[in-house]
Each structure stands twice: as structure tokens, then as C-alpha cells.
């Protein structure tokens, strides 16, 4: 009986040491609900996904955010709009996206980068609006995409409010630190 207990103890310690860095799964930001990462596995570990309903955001809006650790452009960071096209996760939703205008500089969680708005053509033929955000610290990236069916200006406003919340800023900082 003692042996299984010892093994269970060992497994428990190893398991705890492995999951100590994970964050709570639930968002407490008003109007936003954390949902399962909706995309198949790709080269980067899954991130976090959030949904905001019409009643709270004026539109059905979803935000997907994740760190991409190891990016290569360690000195230049997110240098231009092409970089935003390349590194944000727009292609997970649709390979067919087109920028609506030139991007602009932005800071998210104290990290510098760029934001750009897009028109997305979904596989069912519908059109969505999206914003792509890429910010960096040294060799690491943090990318976010917000998308919905409404006007891009509204999506951008609520998404930036959400990403600028203290809870999200804390999580993004921790995620970039590998926690």
C-alpha cells in the first residue's frame, strides 16, 4: 500500500511542477468570455481565445491572442506592415485577407509593435472585418487578432479596450516571460 502512495506522491509533485505556470482559464473582464482555442494545432502552441456578445460589445467579436517565442527579428522588432501580414494569425481564419489601409504603431502590454485592419473572406463566402496586432520584445512576439462582422472601427475599439485591461496585460506579460 505504501508503494502506490509513494508513486502517487511522486507523480503529484512532478505534475504540480509542470503546471505551476499555467493561468486560470476564465476571463473576468466584463462582457468577455474565454472560449476554447478554435484552431487546429500549428507550429506555435495554442493561445487564448475570447468571445464578446452583441449585448456587451455591440457585435459578436472574438479575440485570439498568443505569444510566439523565437521570432528572429530580435533588433528590428515588428518593422513594417508586411510583418503584421506575415506573423498575425489571420491565416488561421482565412487565407484570403486584404489590408484596408496602412497600419499604425501601437503599444500593448508595454510592448511596441503595429496594428493593421483587414477585410477577411471566409470559406463560406461571408466577409468579416479584422484587426491584426503584432508587438515584440527582443526576439519574441505577441500576436492578437480580433474579428467580427461589424465595422472595423468598432472591433478595434472594443478589442483594444479588452487587450488593454490589467488582467490581459498581466497575462500577456507572464506569457512573454514563459510563465
Amino acid at each position, binding site marked *: 500500500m505504501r508503494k502506490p502512495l509513494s508513486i502517487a506522491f511522486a507523480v503529484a509533485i*512532478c505534475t504540480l511542477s509542470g503546471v505551476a505556470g499555467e493561468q486560470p482559464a476564465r476571463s473576468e473582464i466584463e462582457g468577455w468570455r474565454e472560449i476554447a482555442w478554435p484552431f487546429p494545432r500549428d507550429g506555435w502552441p495554442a493561445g487564448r481565445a475570447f468571445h464578446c456578445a452583441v449585448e456587451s460589445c455591440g457585435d459578436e467579436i472574438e479575440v485570439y491572442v498568443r505569444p510566439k517565442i523565437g521570432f528572429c527579428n530580435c533588433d528590428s522588432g515588428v518593422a513594417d506592415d508586411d510583418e503584421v501580414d506575415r506573423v498575425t494569425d489571420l491565416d488561421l481564419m482565412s487565407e484570403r485577407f486584404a489590408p484596408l489601409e496602412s497600419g499604425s504603431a501601437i503599444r500593448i502590454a508595454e510592448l511596441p509593435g503595429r496594428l493593421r485592419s483587414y477585410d477577411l473572406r471566409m470559406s463560406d463566402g461571408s466577409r468579416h472585418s479584422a484587426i491584426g496586432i503584432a508587438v515584440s520584445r527582443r526576439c519574441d512576439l505577441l500576436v492578437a487578432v480580433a474579428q467580427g462582422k461589424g465595422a472595423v472601427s468598432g472591433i478595434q475599439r472594443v478589442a483594444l479596450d479588452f487587450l488593454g485591461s490589467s488582467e490581459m496585460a498581466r497575462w500577456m506579460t507572464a506569457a512573454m516571460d514563459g510563465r
Partner: protein
Amino acid sequence: MNRYVKPATYLSILFIACSTSAYAQQVIGAPPEASNMRLVGSNDLQARSAYQPTIHHQGDRWIAYIGHHGGSDDIPAPVNPQTGKPEPNGTSIVDVTDPAQPKYLHHIPGQEGKYEAGGAQMVRICDGKTLSKGDRNAVYMLRSFGGEAHEIWNVADPANPVLVTRLGGLKDTHKSWWECDTGIAFLVSGAPDWRTRRMTQVYDLSDPAHPLKIRDFGLPGQEPGSTGAVPTELHGPISTGPEGNRVYFGYGTNKGGFLQIVDRDKLINGPREPTPDNLRFPEISRLAMSAFNGAHTVFPMKQMPIAEFAHDKDGKARDIVMIVDEAILNECSEPRQMVWFADVTVENRPMMISSYTVPESSGSFCERGGRFGSHSSNESMAQVFYKKMAFIAFFNAGVRALDIRDPYHPKEVGYFIPSITAATDKRCMTIDGKERCKVAIQTNNVETDERGYIYIVDRANTGLHILELSGAARAVAGLP
């Protein structure tokens, strides 16, 4: 007594299993780790982070040209003892005629900048006498100049190189290829208007003083004016020249890579405007890799006789491409980057047939510090090793010697992990918001010469090590 001993034993095992062991870390003064490979000579390369070595038989001498990454945070521009001045990392030129006593001849400074941002990583060499319009007395060195230019130097006197040509205005460069018989060069560049950091610019450099642009090439979606998803950027091509009529392109670094097989003649002589149709025109096929792996080096070995298939009526010999991923993150923070062998005999149906990695547990490499995983292979097609052995730079696991005579079952037959020195730079990780650093060898690139010497260079500033095979590994190559 027994009731205390057993739990104590379990806890000890648990402690060992769960804790980070330090025994694997290298220490200054410890001997190199080796099997069937022996150190012949070394040079510290002025403690510059090194990338591509190219070894050239030049008259009666053997000269090593070694490209460098940019400097480090601590030492952005190391002092060149020959000039007494700090110089941004560029190209080291070393006389390796006597491999036991390499002589540092000259350093050509590169672009200012640190790590991947500066330096002059890439270098290829062609004799003027093999180029149709070159100066017959010249020896030409094609190198990158940081991310902003490609340069050609005349290194006929390797101690006094002279700049011949500069192709500037780029946003990046990398691992170019130059055919010394035709002069055609496949330059890995970042043309300013393309949507990708790295694509191909095809040039006729048969007259190095007067470069002739042939075309820009990349993947549909990367070209100027396109929209939508941008395909993975290029890492580097290898051409088989007009006879083989193929160019093998490796895309990606440590993610979403693929091998692209291209008809060289169609690439050079096909329609040049970078439209999606024109970019697809020379492509024969692509082999997609896992999203977990990229293609740093794609090394073709055509018509390899496979002993196991010797009695088969068809398919006795196979066209093989060895694909080497590049590890990017320190201390195993990404999926394993390793070596893959693809059978491309049926070109429109290429297929992965085997793989190779260093067993992590053989050296606790995830705990040693720095990168662990593959980066690059030798690219010399000289008879001495071609289609028999491959040498793989594996960062903190040093260089690994593979018997590839049966590419369906590659087998490691030797390795060499150099000792660290006081010059070896640290490699850091952020753990719980704090930086934690370790010092380990980071064997970055490898090349061989026709004499059978193996040249490895270190990304973490430990310099150049010249090796030879010993023991059973020599027999694999047919060396006495």
C-alpha cells in the same frame, strides 16, 4: 529501518528526476567529447560568432573563408589584433594549408549590428578562371553584408582582399548559392517591395564586376502587391547546375518548412514578371514538412545506389535530398529540430523516408544551455564524403558524423563536441521573469574539404575547429 529506506529511495529518485541536473554543463578546461573524430587544429576567429565556412583550394594553399553573425551585447565589435581596432564582425580569412597550424590572414569588417542583425554571415568562392567573363587571375568571394547587401571581393591575395561589386538596397540576405561554372547566383535577398523578408534574386555573376539581374523569384503570395497569407520565407537554395537542371529550395527555419523542387532552366529562362502564374511556372513539386520543422539546408544527392535495393529490377538508385532543420530556441523550448531524408526520385511525389536526431539523453543536452538540435550540414560535394557521409552541426551536441550510404537508415558513426573557452558566450533564458544564463558550445555550421578535413565553427564565439575522422568512421568514407 526498511520502512524509512524505501520512501527515502523513492524521494531520491524523484529529486533526481524532477530537478535540473548540472552535471552535463561544460566547464572551461574540460577535454572535448569525441567519438571517432579527432581535433587537428583550431583558431579562435577573434572570438567572433561564426556562420558559414567555405574552404577553397587556392593555388597550392587551402583557405577557409568564414562568415560571421553580428557582435554580442557585451562585445558589439571585437578588436581585430591585426589592426588594433574594434571591427564589426564580417568575414574571417584563414590559411588552413596546415590544418594543425591555421593562420589567421585577414578580417573584412561586416555591417554594424548585433547577432542576426549585423555581420556578413554567408560566403561562397569561385575562381575567376571558371567564370566565362571573370578575370582569370582573380578568386572571387561572394558574401552577404548584414541584411543590406551582397558583395563580391577579389581574394586572389587572401591577406589583401579588394572589393569588386556591391548589390545593395536590400532588407535582408542569407544563404545564397553560386554556380562557379556558369556564374549564375541564387541570392537570398529581401527585395524591398516583396512581402517576405527573404526570397530569391537570380543573377548572372559570370562577370563579377558587372552583375546582371535575371529575375526575382519566390512563392505566390510573397510577390509585391499580393494579399492574403504570406508563405514561409526562404532559407537557402542549392543548384545542381545546368546538367542536373534542378534547384532545391529550403523554406522555413524551425516551423512550417518545405522543400521546393524547381526546374532550373524554366527558372532562368521562363517569364520573369513576378506574377503568381510565372512564379508557379518553374516549380516541379513541394514537399511540405510538419508545422514543427523548417528547412535550413536542403542538400541533394542524386542517383544514390541503395544496397538493399540492389536486386530490385527498378528503383535501385534513388535521388535523395537531406533536409536539415534549424533549432532556434535555447534549452529545448521548441519541438525538436533534426535531419530528414526525402526520396525525390519521383519528383512530383517526394516522400520522407527517414530521420536522425542526437539522443538527448546521451548528453542531457536540454540542460546544458543554449540551443540543442540541428542547424546545418556540410555542402561540399567533393568525392571524399559525398553520398557516403554527412556532417551535421547540432549546436550544443557539437558536430555529428552520419553514415548515409543507406539513406533509408542513416546511422551516427562519430561526433565531436569542442571544449568551451573563456571566449564562449553565454546563452540566456527568461525563467519566471528573470534571466538565467548558461555557457555551452554552439556548433553552428560545418564544411569539409577535398582532403577529408571537417571544419566546424561556433555561434557562441568559440572559433574554428578542424577535425578528422578516426576509427571506424574512416572506413565508412573509404579513408585509409
